[in-house]
């Protein structure tokens, strides 16, 4: 996206500019400093909830990629899969096995929801690694909706399936009687911290990596440092590829673990 309208000369660190949410249409033209001052200032369009922004664009690209992989890739329904189909089957088998292993057979009916989360995060993370792209999962607004969404759904599910027995999860029957209230308080606190850590972990990891790459890219403007800087960018980029996959996996498996607590609170 066009956004870097900076003149060269001097170090320009704008590592966070890549995270700016901006409308796709109706933006002001890049400011022309040589133009005469005093011309009518262009008012940037306001971002309403329905405005089509770069968030919309990159989420739509993620949806398109998921559609391409999971639907178009498997359209042949071949017994001997094509390459795309076998990638789709690999992801299916990976998440399905994870859900089944962690939550047991009762959890398999929630597999489509967990697959939705996993594929969205995976594709958002990987699409964010394309240079000049926008990373939707680097925004706390996005990951908080995911994290708190999981938290609220799982908590509701726990009460619906187990009734008040769900609260037994906080009351450790194995612990000595004196310690039980203390442990219960700690358990409750840790339970409510879950969505916060769940969402900040994802956004923090993705944002930090992208910002560090941008910082190193800023150093690349200095001729003496640029080779080292570019090497560092390559290395961190490799690390970020790992992080993109691992964070999607971590988010998904933690969701499975929370779901397991709701399905079987007495473990």
């Amino acid at each position, binding site marked *: 996206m066009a956004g870097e*309208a900076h003149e060269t000369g001097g170090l320009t*660190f704008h590592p966070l500019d890549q995270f700016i949410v901006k409308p796709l249409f109706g933006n002001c033209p890049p400011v022309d*400093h040589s133009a005469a001052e005093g011309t009518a200032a262009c008012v940037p369009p306001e971002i309403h909830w329905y405005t089509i*922004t770069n*968030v919309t664009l990159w989420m739509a690209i993620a*949806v398109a990629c998921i559609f391409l992989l999971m639907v178009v890739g498997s359209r042949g329904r071949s017994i001997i899969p094509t390459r795309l189909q076998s990638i789709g*089957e690999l992801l299916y088998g990976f998440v399905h096995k994870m859900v089944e292993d962690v939550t047991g057979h009762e959890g398999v009916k929630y597999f489509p929801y967990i697959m939705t989360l996993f594929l969205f995060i995976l594709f958002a993370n990987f699409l964010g690694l394309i240079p000049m792209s926008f990373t939707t999962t680097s925004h706390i*607004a996005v990951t908080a909706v995911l994290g708190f969404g999981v938290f609220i759904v799982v908590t509701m599910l726990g009460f619906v399936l187990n009734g008040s027995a769900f609260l037994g999860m906080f009351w450790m029957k194995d612990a000595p009687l004196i310690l039980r209230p203390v442990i219960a308080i700690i358990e409750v606190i840790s339970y409510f911290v879950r969505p916060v850590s769940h969402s900040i972990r994802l956004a923090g990891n993705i944002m930090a990596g992208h910002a560090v790459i941008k910082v190193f890219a800023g150093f690349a403007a200095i001729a003496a440092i640029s080779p080292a800087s570019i090497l560092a960018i390559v290395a961190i980029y490799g690390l970020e590829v790992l992080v993109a996959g691992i964070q999607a996996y971590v988010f998904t498996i933690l969701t499975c673990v929370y779901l397991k607590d709701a399905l079987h609170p007495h473990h």
Partner: protein
Amino acid sequence: MATETAGTEVEAGMPQLDFSTFPNQIFWLVITLVVIYLILSRIALPRIGSVLAERAGTVTNDIAAAEELKKRAVAAEAAYDKALADARSEANRIVAAAKAEMQAELDVELRKADSEIAALTAESEKGLAEIRDSALASVTEVAKSTAREIVNVFGQGADASAVDAAVEVRIKG
């Protein structure tokens, strides 16, 4: 550092904490998740699940079919072996029967030949006996006549019948 602020950009800290963009992001995220969920649950997951199940079924069927074919091959081999053994015993039986038949025929023929030989032997023995008897008779006759002649030569007119009797006694003795 950068003296020029790029025009319209928000410069106040992290864009992540610009709450004015939250409704926008949340709205599009919810849309995205719903669309992905619908794509997955309506089309992609049932399809991939059925493909995987079908593949597992195909593999199981193929293994079962291979097992079946192997069983049939073993059965065919057993049948072949059995047919071979049967044919061999049948051949042995035929050989034994033929041998016994030949033996029986041979025995009959031998017996017939034996009896023929016995008959011939008996006949020739009879012939021989006749010859011997006639020879004996001739000898007796010659002895008698010779004795008579000798007695005559000696000049004693002997009774012929007495001579004969004497000769007869001598021959028998």
